């Protein structure tokens, strides 16, 4: 596969969480040699760059961003589960026969 390059940075690592991707870009000639970006899965419009000078920091940032996304998706899932529960309960209540 050809190397993917964005803004002069070679994309070296990629993590997909749901519909979001986080990548690390590397450019040995740039003032900041590493960057992490966010983008929508399958698209190439990278945004919200976090720039740094070593790969360890970039990897750490990539992990933190991915974890934030996981927490966000978990909270969405919990919210959805709670809504479904409430809907079932209210449906049950509406079926209770009048005495």
């Amino acid at each position: 596969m050809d190397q993917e390059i964005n803004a002069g940075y070679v994309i070296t690592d990629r993590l997909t969480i749901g519909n979001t991707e986080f990548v690390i870009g590397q450019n040995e000639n740039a003032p900041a040699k590493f960057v992490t970006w966010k983008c929508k899965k399958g698209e190439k419009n990278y945004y919200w760059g976090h720039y740094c000078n070593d790969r360890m920091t970039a990897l750490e940032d990539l992990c933190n961003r991915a974890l934030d996304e996981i927490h966000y998706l978990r909270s969405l899932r919990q919210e959805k589960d709670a809504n479904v529960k409430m809907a079932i309960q209210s449906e049950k209540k509406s079926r209770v026969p009048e005495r």
Partner: protein
Amino acid sequence: MKMDEEKRMVDTYEVKHAIHVGDKEVLFAVDNTKTDYPYMVCNCTWDNPLGIDHYFNAAASPDYLEMMTEYISRVTAQLEAVKAERDKITVPLQPFTLEHCIPNDNGQNLENKVVIIRPERLRPEYRTADKQLVLATGGFGAHANSRGRAVYTVNLYSGKESRWNHEDILGTLKPEYMPDWAKERLKQIQAGRQAKQ
């Protein structure tokens, strides 16, 4: 994930993400035919005489987010391990460059000389002096004008034995740049090798 690789498989699982940190690679793989455990996380090392993939410590689950959390926590743990390892190193980490060495051409014999590993041949987190300085102990690539590639080495800091290719060697360390810790370690390693012979 390594972008230039074809489909990489671990058993029936296709590797979707792989991050190499320190001495391990952490993999996230998927097999959608396994409905009970489609998502799998495992580690991989090559630290064996043949340098072949050794997969271990696998965990699988039907929950994508659970396995992705496991994956990220393993990568984070590796980052912490590398940092801890680096903190333990007591010698200056400033990498050696071309100015510190007599450049490697095919004409010089490297055997029994302290040579510098090219920084770009080391993983980014290991591009430090302690990983670069090695004693060349043999191999066909260590001989002058040889067509062989293998250069066997002993790391001056850790004492670990490794095999490199001739082109991985930046050059022979100029004596005036030899740090005191390396002089001391070199004596110990040479004494140990002589005792073995």
